[in-house]
């Protein structure tokens, strides 16, 4: 209840209202939800994780294990919020968790009555059997019975901000020690304070309501600033929270210490709390947690509580606390019962060494203070104040074994569970944690680890120092996913890359496909068309007329220097020394392990100048691969590599009418086969812009790639498209591109290849220059496994009905032994039947036989054919 004494943080002249479990209550500005509940005499605030025991408020800070509530409503609801950390505002709505139908009458408490059947390792011992039993029976049961608050299901409407900051000195902790350290620090100084704003310090950037939750290598600290959580929703503007990533020259920790609970039967009853917390509630909020208080252990606060109006009885220890939904009496060491309405645990103190320990800071057990203190280390932050071990020396109160003597309040782990685990052999502190779950969940053992490992040490006749602690890992306190995501959500979760022609595609009703980060036109449906019909139409247009594809996403690398040809000779499997200027060649690139890495065409633009085209998905990887070899293996080669992927916009004009289309807009070059043959390059102009024309075909038809400065990419595309109108030019997307190339047996990297496929597997041994002394992958291609006759080889498949990509290939319908798999599968627009490509063991020797494609319960007979289905003679390439 509220008393006249204390109350430094509240404004008694003003009253605000809030709701807890639909009950309307009043409080003062400055209250936390916990202090306001206690001021209203409410101690029972939730039910425990496993046994659904009534639980109250234990602490007054970040270490709170019990008083977890859901704050806010609807999509704004935040479960598992610590009532001790919630700054109250007018109209706040909170509700208790893990209780049904209510916190006062909870059916789940029946599990508490049966708690002797839920010992340590209960999950591991009980939930045995098939995976089906787990998913259908056990997991739904556990999720319903054990757990914390449910997460809201609607998208989070809040904004979250993210910020990088740099400083010479970062001080974490806004208490006396932290403020003193910040005041004398030099350079840029940032002080992080978990609480509400305090007085500023000259020369110090003070971040209030900000919790440092993790320390990482090289003095990186991550912190969450609660920007608007303390305001009523209607008054909030800007981001809800801000994630700070602070890189500091020096870190000073002033994170304080946590008083530890005592262990005795009934130590989890509402009304049993830390003595230090009761003093905080009195000093800061003018709240007395009880009228008849039993103070156990350290009794140094008794006078202050008496001055606040309480009757205080002190005991060095008690045997048990009693009560149902609130503590009502204790059994003293003399076995007499004493009536009370609050029990305060005057335990010893554990410095908050979490941030010290996150990056390997060592700690040592101080037997006098019975706590772990940080070991000073020049490679670790400097700790000051309580977190450095400057805590009161309090004689530990020995634990009392008995029913419901809890070690870990949040995980419902009792001292009996620790003892059982020890007897069963879980004597490593890390094993103990995993077996009993002590120290897990949102409080990460701030009030349980020390008691747990002290008990373990006692059981082993050892010491806490010898037993050691579990590893401290971030986060120190729970962090909202929204804060971690920041602005990187929805459409910004990964950059979408757009070509210079993107707006045209949108205006022409393209459906888009994600290819890596690129948005590429997938197909352009006309009214009433589904994807299949659109793709068949687009393919036929290319085969019979002319089509256009935006190929701007192709990787393009400028390669220059006197050794450029020699370099290409090393990175491609085929020969490059004798390519004429203005001519192009297809090349296959392997990794050093001999597996196909990328393929594409490279063009000799000048005596010492080449341009290499890579696949869209591999553009960056290929450049990295080449730079790696150039810089680290062959630095003597005089070659410069420059990415020009985005400099060149590229349009493919393909089909028997391609030349006719181009001749309407191209000036400055002769387009005839004689003057400009397949696999050649010419420079020309279109619509006033300089372009490069390449005779490169990925469809099997007469094709020109038109490349121009991306600044003019849209203009050149539109000029080409306008010129194509008389020919019915048809834009086509990646799906038709795939069908058209598959009819020609052209591979797609990442579809026909998966890092286990050699050039020969793909039927590309013609592209391996065996006479070259060396190229990347050459030695590996001579390994015995690469020469096996039963390697999987690329073949064409003609199935009797459609088959999915990824289907397994077997020799006979009933076989389980797998010969390979289907890599590509489409409907052929030229033959009007399903066709596929597949990697099949000894595939080339199987041409003319049949295999079976297996998927689900289906088995489809497929004729094995050559990979080239369409125009095997290649006569259409010249139009």
């Amino acid at each position: 209840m509220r008393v006249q004494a204390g109350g430094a943080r509240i404004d008694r002249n003003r009253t605000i209202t809030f709701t807890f479990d639909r009950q309307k209550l009043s409080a003062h500005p400055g209250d936390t939800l916990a202090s306001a509940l206690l001021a209203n005499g409410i101690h029972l605030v939730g039910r425990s994780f496993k046994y659904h025991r009534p639980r109250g408020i234990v602490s007054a800070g970040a270490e709170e294990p019990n008083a977890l509530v859901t704050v806010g409503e609807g999509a704004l609801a935040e479960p598992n919020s610590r009532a001790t950390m919630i700054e109250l505002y007018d109209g706040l709505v909170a509700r208790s968790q893990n209780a049904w139908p209510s916190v006062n009458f909870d059916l789940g408490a029946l599990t508490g009555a049966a708690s002797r059947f839920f010992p340590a390792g209960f999950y591991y011992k009980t939930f045995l059997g098939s995976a089906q039993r787990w998913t259908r029976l056990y997991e739904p049961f556990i999720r319903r019975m054990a757990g914390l608050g449910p997460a809201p299901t609607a998208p989070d409407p809040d904004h979250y901000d993210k910020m990088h900051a740099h400083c010479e000195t970062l001080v974490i902790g806004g208490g006396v020690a932290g403020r003193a350290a910040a005041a004398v620090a030099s350079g840029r100084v940032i002080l992080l304070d978990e609480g509400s704003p305090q007085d500023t310090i000259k020369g110090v950037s003070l971040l209030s309501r900000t919790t440092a939750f993790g320390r990482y290598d090289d003095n990186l600290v991550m912190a969450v600033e609660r920007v608007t959580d303390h305001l009523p929703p209607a008054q909030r503007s800007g981001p809800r929270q801000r994630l700070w990533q602070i890189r500091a020259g020096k870190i000073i920790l002033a994170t304080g210490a946590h008083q530890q609970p005592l262990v005795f039967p009934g130590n989890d009853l509402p009304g049993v709390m830390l003595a230090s917390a009761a003093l905080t509630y009195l000093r800061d909020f003018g709240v007395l947690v009880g009228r008849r208080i039993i103070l156990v252990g350290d009794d140094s606060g008794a006078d202050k509580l008496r001055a606040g109006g309480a009757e205080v009885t002190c005991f060095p220890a008690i045997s048990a606390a009693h009560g149902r939904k609130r503590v009502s009496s204790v059994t003293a060491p003399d076995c007499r019962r004493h009536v009370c309405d609050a029990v305060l645990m005057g335990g010893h103190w554990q410095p908050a060494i979490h941030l010290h320990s996150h990056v390997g800071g060592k700690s040592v057990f101080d037997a006098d203070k019975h706590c772990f203190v940080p070991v000073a280390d020049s490679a670790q932050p400097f700790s000051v104040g309580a977190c450095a071990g400057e805590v009161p020396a309090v004689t530990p109160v020995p634990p009392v074994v008995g029913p419901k003597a809890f070690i870990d309040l949040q995980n419902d782990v009792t001292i009996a569970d620790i003892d059982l685990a020890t007897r069963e052999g879980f004597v490593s502190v890390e094993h103990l944690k995993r077996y009993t779950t002590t120290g897990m969940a949102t409080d990460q053992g701030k009030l349980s680890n020390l008691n747990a490992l002290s008990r373990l040490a006692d059981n082993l006749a050892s010491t806490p120092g010898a037993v050691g602690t579990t590893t401290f890992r971030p986060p120190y306190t729970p962090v909202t996913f929204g804060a971690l995501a920041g602005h990187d959500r929805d459409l910004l979760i990964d950059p979408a890359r757009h070509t210079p022609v993107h707006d045209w595609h949108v205006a022409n009703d393209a459906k888009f496909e994600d290819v890596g980060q690129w948005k590429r036109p997938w197909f352009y449906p006309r009214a009433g068309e589904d994807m299949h019909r659109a793709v068949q139409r687009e393919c036929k247009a290319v085969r019979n007329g002319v089509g256009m594809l935006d190929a701007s996403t192709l990787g393009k690398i400028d390669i220059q220097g006197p050794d450029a040809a020699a370099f290409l000779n090393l990175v491609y499997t085929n020969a490059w020394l004798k390519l004429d200027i203005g001519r192009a060649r297809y090349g296959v690139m392997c990794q050093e392990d001999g597996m196909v890495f990328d393929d594409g065409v490279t063009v000799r633009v000048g005596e010492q100048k080449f341009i290499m085209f890579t696949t869209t998905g591999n553009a960056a990887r290929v450049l990295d691969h080449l730079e790696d070899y150039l810089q680290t293996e062959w630095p003597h080669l005089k070659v410069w590599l420059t990415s020009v992927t985005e400099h060149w916009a590229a349009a493919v004009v393909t089909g028997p009418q391609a030349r006719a289309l181009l001749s309407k807009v191209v000036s400055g070059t002769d387009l005839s086969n004689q003057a400009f043959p397949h696999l050649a390059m010419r420079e020309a102009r279109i619509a006033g812009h300089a372009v490069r024309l390449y005779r490169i075909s990925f469809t099997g038809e007469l094709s020109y790639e038109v490349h121009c400065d991306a600044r003019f990419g849209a203009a050149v595309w539109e000029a080409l498209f306008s010129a194509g109108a008389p020919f019915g030019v048809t834009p086509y997307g990646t799906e038709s591109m795939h069908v058209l190339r598959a009819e020609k047996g052209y591979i797609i990297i990442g579809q026909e290849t998966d890092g286990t496929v050699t050039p020969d597997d793909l039927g590309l041994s013609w592209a391996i220059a065996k006479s070259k002394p060396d190229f990347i992958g050459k030695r590996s291609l001579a390994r015995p496994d690469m020469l096996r006759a039963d390697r999987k080889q690329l073949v064409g498949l003609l199935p009797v009905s459609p088959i999915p990509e990824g289907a397994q290939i077997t020799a006979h319908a009933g076989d389980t032994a797998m010969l390979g798999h289907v890599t590509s599968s489409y409907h052929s627009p030229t033959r009007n039947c399903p066709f596929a490509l597949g990697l099949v063991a000894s595939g080339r020797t199987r041409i003319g036989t049949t295999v079976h494609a297996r998927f689900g319960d289906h088995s489809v007979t497929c004729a094995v054919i050559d990979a080239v289905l369409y125009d095997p003679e290649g006569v259409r390439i010249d139009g």
Partner: protein
Amino acid sequence: MLLIPCPHCGLRDQIEFRSGGESDRARPADPSGLNEADWAEYLFLRRNEKGLHRERWNHASGCGKWFTLTRDTRTHRFVS
């Protein structure tokens, strides 16, 4: 998140870099002259040191250069 000393750009955040693994593994001058075991050793085997580890880094989002650093794999500290 390490701060990595790029020899050209100074200390930069780890996100700007790509790791290239163990350093000092020069590609053999004549791979075809190696027997199976020696080639497999070059291709597949790494020392995986606990302690001082010479490793390659590429300042991918910065200057694009490859360089070699020595890092203590126990502490993640770079040593010169």
